[in-house]
């Protein structure tokens, strides 16, 4: 485990190259997330944000480079292994299990855990975080509204009590008010001790709660800085912040 001052590295990508067939998507991506941090990854459409998350989670395998999680190189391990070691994801478009109840969806999040008491405690904690879900435990996931599905996806991911929560565009399809609420929740989860690595298009919002941010463009990291510096960055303003 590498130490950087007082901070511990939880996740590190080292010179990752990922291909879809012949198409070279991630071109030498390197980044680092420290334990306890909230880091966001910004970028335009098709810049490779989701691909980065998929590479971290092992849904696609990089052609070269290392994914180091908690001090262990895991780029050759299957997704299950990584989830067991403490990763969880809120996927793009939420991907709720539509014909399963809210309760079952949450249970699926804890699929790899066997500590009943711990699961029960986390379950209560998550229902406290999302009272809305508590009202609807027996409703089928697919019949939830988009916002509720987002909560469910987040609750489901948290059910594995992850060290690192990966989120792919959590604000997608939400009304502005909900987006704000959602980001507050993410911040809350982060403050309770979960490290968050978040992909977002909504750069303003994301940077307002994040500690640090990376900007990816056509598969390369072009900017990396403290969140507040990025908010002031001319280049980024022009490109994403639209002001």
């Amino acid at each position: 485990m590498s130490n950087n001052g007082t901070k511990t590295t939880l996740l590190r990508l080292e010179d990752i190259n990922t291909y879809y067939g012949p198409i070279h998507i991630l071109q030498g991506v390197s980044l680092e997330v420290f334990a306890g941090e909230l880091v966001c990854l910004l970028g335009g459409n098709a810049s490779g944000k989701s691909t980065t998350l998929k590479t971290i989670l092992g849904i696609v395998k990089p052609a070269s480079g290392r994914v180091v999680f908690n001090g262990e190189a895991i780029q050759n391990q299957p997704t299950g292994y990584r989830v067991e070691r403490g990763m969880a994801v809120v996927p793009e478009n939420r991907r709720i299990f539509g014909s399963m109840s809210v309760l079952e969806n949450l249970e699926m999040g804890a699929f790899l855990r066997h500590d009943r008491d711990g699961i029960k405690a986390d379950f209560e904690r998550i229902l406290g975080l999302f009272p809305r879900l508590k009202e609807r435990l027996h409703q089928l996931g697919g019949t939830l509204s988009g916002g509720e599905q987002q909560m469910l996806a987040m609750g489901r991911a948290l059910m594995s009590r992850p060290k690192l929560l990966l989120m792919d565009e959590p604000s997608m399809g939400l009304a502005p008010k909900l987006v704000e609420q959602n980001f507050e929740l993410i911040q809350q989860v982060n403050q309770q001790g979960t490290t968050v690595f978040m992909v977002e298009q909504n750069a303003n919002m994301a940077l307002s709660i994040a500690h640090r941010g990376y900007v990816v463009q056509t598969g390369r990291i072009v900017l990396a800085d403290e969140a507040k510096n990025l908010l002031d960055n001319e280049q980024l303003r022009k490109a994403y912040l639209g002001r």
Partner: protein
Amino acid sequence: MSQNKIGVDQWVEQYDQRVNKAKGLQGFIARTSQRLPPWGWLIVLVAVGALLPVITQNNFAIRIAGNIALMGTLALGLNVVVGYAGLLDLGFVAFYGIGAYTYAYLSSDFSGVHLPTWVSLPIIIVISALFGLVLGSPSLRLLGDYLAIVTLGFGQIFVQLMTSLTRVSLPGHERPVDLTGGPNGIINLDKLSLFGFTARTVTDHYLILLVVLAVALLVIYHLNRSRIGRAWRALREDELAAEAMGMPTRRLKLQAFAIGAAVAGFSGALFAGWQGSVFPANFDTTLLISVYAIIVLGGLGSLPGVVVGSIVMVAAPDILRDVTLAGTLFYVGVLVTLIGAIRPRWQTALLIGLVVVFGVIVRLIVGALDAQALAEPQLSNSLITNTVRSWLIIPVNATIIGNYAFGLLILMVLGVSRIKHSVWRLAALVPTLYVLIFVWETRLSQEPSVTRLLFVGVLLIVLMIYRPNGLLGQKRVEIV
């Protein structure tokens, strides 16, 4: 089932209210079925099933019931693979065949081995499951349609091999060896024998199959509610999300494949023991279609659905062999459809009255024009049929005219379905119904074998229109 009402969804609540309000028999059944726990249903099933041989000594009926139990068990296996795990396995029947042939090898003169069934069954289960793994591991890399095609090929190859492996050169044998008995199969298998009890009569077999069905239901019910069962459902819903939750998707699929194969092999062994022989033709596509029809009809993934599905799919074709019964069913079916489809009810009565009047008038007109064109009605032993035939006109060359009438009927049905105005529609229904009855009496009731299939086909289509998720299937929720 949990009765927790906190945060019950609105439509669930509305459904409950509707059930509680529903009057009469329908409401009673709906309420009772909600209250009765699953094991209660199982007891009802076994009790009713066990009563059958007490009520009737009719071997034909008991044989049908035995077939229902056997097909039900087989369909339960398929239900695991397709209904739970969502894998479109079209080679499933081959595992049934593998079980049956393994039984034949372990209990016949063909191989000279004579194991009692309770010894051979565990072996058969293991062998079938292994074959499931062997077929599963390469093909599970394939998705959807590709998996279907590859497994379909496997099913065909199995039948081909069993048909053709009659002259195989083996090391250590001078002459080619017959491994499968070819198209003539393997005969004179040992009877099913469990712990000293040997099944001899139809009833013996039926009772064994009934118990097997009940046990299989119990096991698969608990399997579905276990961790692995829920993981299968998640997998079927969204494979990528399931993988992202850390589920071992490949292993889960293999497990479904192997368990499905084991259940199929097990059923196949019982089938072989009951029939006393095995032939390659027992395991062809017809059987595959029947098993799929059972689970689709009952509702994918639903256990009561499997039972209901196999009752309908096995019993219907057998019962419809009886012409009198088929006729009764036809008229009752038409009547029920009319009562269900036409509101208010008095219009149904009016319609039937008009059809009768229409028939009398047609009879008078045709009689006045050319009395020789009419044939004497052949009377049957059914009251309904006789009443209808003495009122209907049956022409001399009934078969040919019946064919034309069939074509006319299709056109008329299409026409009626396009009429919007209710009075005109009712008026148009009168001749349509008349022609329908005419076609039934001149053509369909004369050819039970064709009618049977037609009947089952129509039944399936109608059911699927009204219950697209099968009789007892749960509605799938698609996320859009």
